[in-house]
């Protein structure tokens, strides 16, 4: 079992969240949500602290983390990219868009680029089916994305203008 090697203040953040939910095992999902929100991801060491605080087994915690696609064990990139694979987006070519992102970034779904800039994930339906296929980068939504646009989206962020460029926001 990996030894816990988290910084003291990180451990405190986790313990505080657990305490907020009365260290109750039944609140595991809520605890995971909040901790991920604060730390960005849920590495093994974090799950161990949570298991200990909630008096449950780390296997159970890991079971929940791996069951829900929302939870991530790898740090998200500075610009997390999410591609909607809901029915409408899927039939309008989301998979080709996803494949293009994979090809350009050289990562698989759930992974981050080596420089920590981008991470790639899928999600289900943003409720913007009229704009399908939809891609989110951070909080920003791109609609009617074609595979040919992928390279430009990435370049915009690499050049440091993507996040401030609001012209593409749907």
């Amino acid at each position, binding site marked *: *079992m990996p030894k816990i090697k988290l910084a003291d203040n990180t451990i405190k953040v986790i313990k505080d969240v657990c305490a907020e939910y009365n260290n109750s095992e039944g609140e595991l999902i809520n605890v995971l949500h909040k901790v991920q929100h604060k730390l960005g991801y849920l590495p093994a060491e974090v*799950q161990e602290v949570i298991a200990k605080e909630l008096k449950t087994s780390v296997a159970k915690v*890991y079971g929940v983390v*791996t069951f829900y*696609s929302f939870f991530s064990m790898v740090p998200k990139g500075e610009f997390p990219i999410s591609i909607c694979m809901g029915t409408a987006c899927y039939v309008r070519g989301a998979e080709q868009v996803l494949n293009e992102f994979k090809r350009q970034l050289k990562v698989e779904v759930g992974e981050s680029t080596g420089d920590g800039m981008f991470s790639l994930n899928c999600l289900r339906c943003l409720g913007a089916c009229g704009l399908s296929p939809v891609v989110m980068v951070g909080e920003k939504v791109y609609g009617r994305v074609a595979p040919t646009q992928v390279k430009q989206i990435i370049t915009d962020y690499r050049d440091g203008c993507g996040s401030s460029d609001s012209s593409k926001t749907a």
Partner: protein
Amino acid sequence: MDTIQLTIDNKPVVVKKGITILDAASSVGIHIPTLCHMKLDDLNIENRPGGCRICVVEVEGRRNLAPACCTEVADGMVINSHSIRVINARQTVLELILSDHPADCLICAKSGKCELQDMAHHLGIREIHYKGEQSTYREDTSPAIIRDVDKCIMCRRCEMMCNEVQTVGVLSAINRGFNAVVSPAFEMNLDHSVCTYCGQCVAVCPTGALTEVDQTAQVVRALSDPTKTVVVQTAPAVRAALGEEFDMEPGTLVTGKLAASLRRLGFNYVFDTDFAADLTIMEEGTEMLNRLSRFLEGDKNVKLPILTSCCPAWVKFFEHQFPQLNDIPSTARSPQQMFGSIAKTYFAEKMGIDREDLVVVSIMPCVAKKYECGRDEFKVNENPDVDYAITTRELAGLIKLANIDFNKLPNEDFDLPLGESTGAGVIFGTTGGVIEAAVRTAYELYTKKPLQKLDFHELRGMEGIRHATIDFAGFPLKIGIAHGLGNARKLLEKIESGESEFHAIEIMSCPGGCIGGGGQPYHHGNAEILKKRQMALYQEDSNKTIRKSHENPYIIQLYEEFLGKPMSEKAHHLLHTEYFDRT
């Protein structure tokens, strides 16, 4: 009591409110097939995730089929347990399970004892109509247990055992859908986890997904090596269960046939772990009396309660989970290891055999014993005190391999000197037995008076946690007993918080003790089998002429010729051990 009426297969049934259709049906002798469900009555162990859907039945007026294992009965229900719709559904469900299951039954370790195979037979599956992807996962081999997750049907029994019963918390379902598997956290291998190797996951696995590391081939090789002298020891619980592998009634004692079969297999000396159990009592009992006398003299530093240390899974459990209590358990090694140590010193010297030329094999009801004999502290110059520990099931396999007609074997005795044992040694195989054996000896050593009665019924039974007070000539000795690691945890937490008032506690990892060990013939969820094995051991005890460990003549001889006295320096070196912090 509230009762309700219903009809199952045209049979009127009156049952308690709140029970399941499955239990209601079985109360009138109607057997509904199940796969993921397992229930051990009296032990409060039940697995009913309602996952497999093999047990579906048709309930009149209900749109969909109802899983019998987790649907409560209702007044006036009309149930059909084998309508065409039900049978079709069961076959479809099973075909879907089988479509993602390796079809290697011919060479599977579980073949012939597999509940999935039995179900396919029972439901008459002749063709699997669904073809598709098969899930694949790496095989995980540890010192005692092999995980072959491809054969897992996600019944979750192992998970229930590991988490709810044993509270070890190693196994959990991870990932989702087709990728879901039962695994330790972070998909680490078992030998990196806090697994105790208790083997209760193996004991309840319906398929070949969890099995013991099979060492019969190594044993056969040792037996056929003319340069080796091979001695065998057999644990108490084996004699109460081995017969089941040869279609005998559960609870049939096969001690004589067991000795005979081991001799036929070619072991040079057929000995008995019961001898080492008697030796354990001498050491552990003396240690207990030492601690008690110091306590009674007012020594505040003495560690009480003393905990038994015969069970390797229990030892590994507290090393991982309660290392701060490492100085509380007795330092006595387990009977298996005491036997190995004495065999490779005292016996080897007596016979003029070099340690390297002596192979010690043990037959155990346990898979953790495989791990235990590999622990470094039980080796001398890399040579282990016990070379191979095989399970009751593996021994049955060996006997069949050698074409021995077990049922027709004569009753034979164990060899001397390490085959002589007392009734106290025999009951080591059941929960409550070790402490009863210890009490018999400790009482007489402490009071210097013979016991009036040897049967301590107050220490026996199947309750998960039991306690009793024994009058030690005016001193009330308070005894606790726990079987199942979850129950052990409760007692340990009390010790930690200073609430425990016990002087001595016996702990066995497996429900029922070694009779319910992970290496025993599969009970397939029938707790009656465990009770019958338990009764068999008490019967063997009462049949013995000598029933107190300190009266075993060969134990007395061992101390006179070799060890000196209990807890002597030599005894300490050969028969005691230390514990490690594994956090």
